[in-house]
């Protein structure tokens, strides 16, 4: 039986390149529909909040797609569950992917296998649309997305 896969695109499409996570997650939706991959769900969020745990509980694998100022090129990075010393929340209700995994693990005793697709970004000002530099990353981001969807990551 195919694994239950979940893609979560993170970011705000109204803040320039921060919307790249949502855009690439949208590509995952199209690719899944084209390949009749009914086992893949796609979500787009501006930030991760605790109730996402209920979605992760139902997944065997999860791919977080997020903008990253420090990344030089698109890359897939395995994600581990956050350790007890990494659970400070900055006193708000917004979570990092590893923290969401930890919360899922706490709630259900298991967390899905998780990967982060980090996408380099350059312009995070107000406004829709990606910068030319961010747009140039899209073909490689799509290749990595397909790699993950095909179970090679």
């Amino acid at each position: 039986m195919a694994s239950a896969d979940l893609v979560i695109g993170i970011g705000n499409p109204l803040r320039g390149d921060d919307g790249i996570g949502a855009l690439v997650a949208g590509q995952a939706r199209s690719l899944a529909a084209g390949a009749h991959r009914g086992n893949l769900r796609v979500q787009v969020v501006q930030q991760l909040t605790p109730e996402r745990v209920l979605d992760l509980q139902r997944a065997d694998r999860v791919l977080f797609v997020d903008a990253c100022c420090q990344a030089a090129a698109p890359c897939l990075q395995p994600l581990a569950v956050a350790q007890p010393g990494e659970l400070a929340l900055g006193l708000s209700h917004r979570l990092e992917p590893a923290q969401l995994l930890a919360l899922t693990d706490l709630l259900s005793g298991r967390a899905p296998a998780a990967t982060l697709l980090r996408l380099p970004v350059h312009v995070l000002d107000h406004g829709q649309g990606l910068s030319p530099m961010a747009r140039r990353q899209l073909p490689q981001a799509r290749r990595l997305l397909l790699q993950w969807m095909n179970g090679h990551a």
Partner: protein
Amino acid sequence: MTRTITIDPVTRIEGHARITLQLDGRGHLADARFQVLEVRGFEQFCVGRPFTEMAGLTSRICGICPVSHQLAAARAGDKLLAVQPPDAAQRLRRLLNLAQILQSHALSFFYLSSPDWLLGWSSDPARRNIFGLMAADPELARGGIGLRQFGQQVIERLGGRRIHQAWAVPGGVRTPLAPETRDWILAQLPQARATMARVLDGYKRLLDGPLRYEQRSFGSFASLFMALVGPDGCWETLDGALRLVDSRAQVVASALSADDYGRFLGEVLEDWSVLKFPYYRPLGYPKGLYRVGPLARLNVCTAIGTPWADAELADFRGRGGTPASGGRIVTAAFAYHQARLVEIVACLEGIEALLQDPRILDRRVRAHASLNALEAVGVGEAPRGTLFHHYRVDDNGLLTAVNLIIATGQNNLAMNRTVAQIARACLPWPLPASAAIPEALLNRVEAGIRCYDPCLSCSTHAAGAMPLHIELRDASGALLCETVRD
């Protein structure tokens, strides 16, 4: 020598603020201030935009209560068009607002406030969050997460997305309700009800035990309370008229129209905070202190109008009602938390009642018209209290003036009073000049603010990092010591 203790910013609220405790020369509390320091300026940059954009624009003020702004803007738009939305549209707006109140209350109660009392006032601040809650009471955490998700899913299924929708518009809503969406929501209700039954049972045990003191005296003082009520005086979230009651259960004013808010509400700007200080004009400033939000709504209404919520309202009044009001009015700010639970029950029952009426499926959901008025006030009950949107437009429908009176602002005077009251009750007076303030005591002061669940994103400021900064200052304002936690 006097000194000042500052908690900056206040944590587990929506936005950035600071609490300052000013001490006099004998080490006693001289003044307490809840200070909001950063301007966001929505009222200014909306000027010049078409009023038809306001529901979409103002829903972006806040990620917690976008629905409330959207609805207030749409209702102001109804008046500018001089139309009455179709019956189904009014029901759908009400459904949306109930889902909004439910999810926001769940966030406040479970994610932000319950760690204080489940983990203890003196517990490690780094653990006072959803992870700590999960470790201390996984069932409660699971239930809270589920409730918030349910409210958000209702909003998403109605408006197309969980936050920043633009579904409510002047004249109605964009799309009718599909039968399958109605059926899906109805199917989720039994689990949400079961969760609330468990949560209420557990919380009442806490109120009977370790939280007995807080429930009766935390932020307890006489004040006015204001909220919308229906024609029969019942709990209301969208329509109806404004009513004010005092702490002795006397109706101070009733049948007030939001259109006339300038007649009975005034606003003052102090030089030490950018958050305005609304007050009840007939009593003047600051004597006209009033409170809004869940506590106020339950104090103002005669009943909620649904069986389970009315039973919980009776329990709420039975536990916290003051003798001066014949047990009718609850004055402790800590009771905001129980009030939120009562309102979640009211939302669940209200959602069910709305969905069981087939009229909500009517396909006619929007009235169309051109501009027919140049000034309007939209009002509604947001999770944190009454929300006003006041617009003036020119002949082309472009905004020439915008005034937003936010619930958090209306509770501003009360939050300051609450901080002072809790500080007086909880800190060791006179305060030794060099003593560090115990975490448990500082957290209580801070938690007094959290009772009101202030949303500074709405009232002034974009959300940002929220570390805690505590300063101790002398009479001249010189810094004696400070603590920062990230």
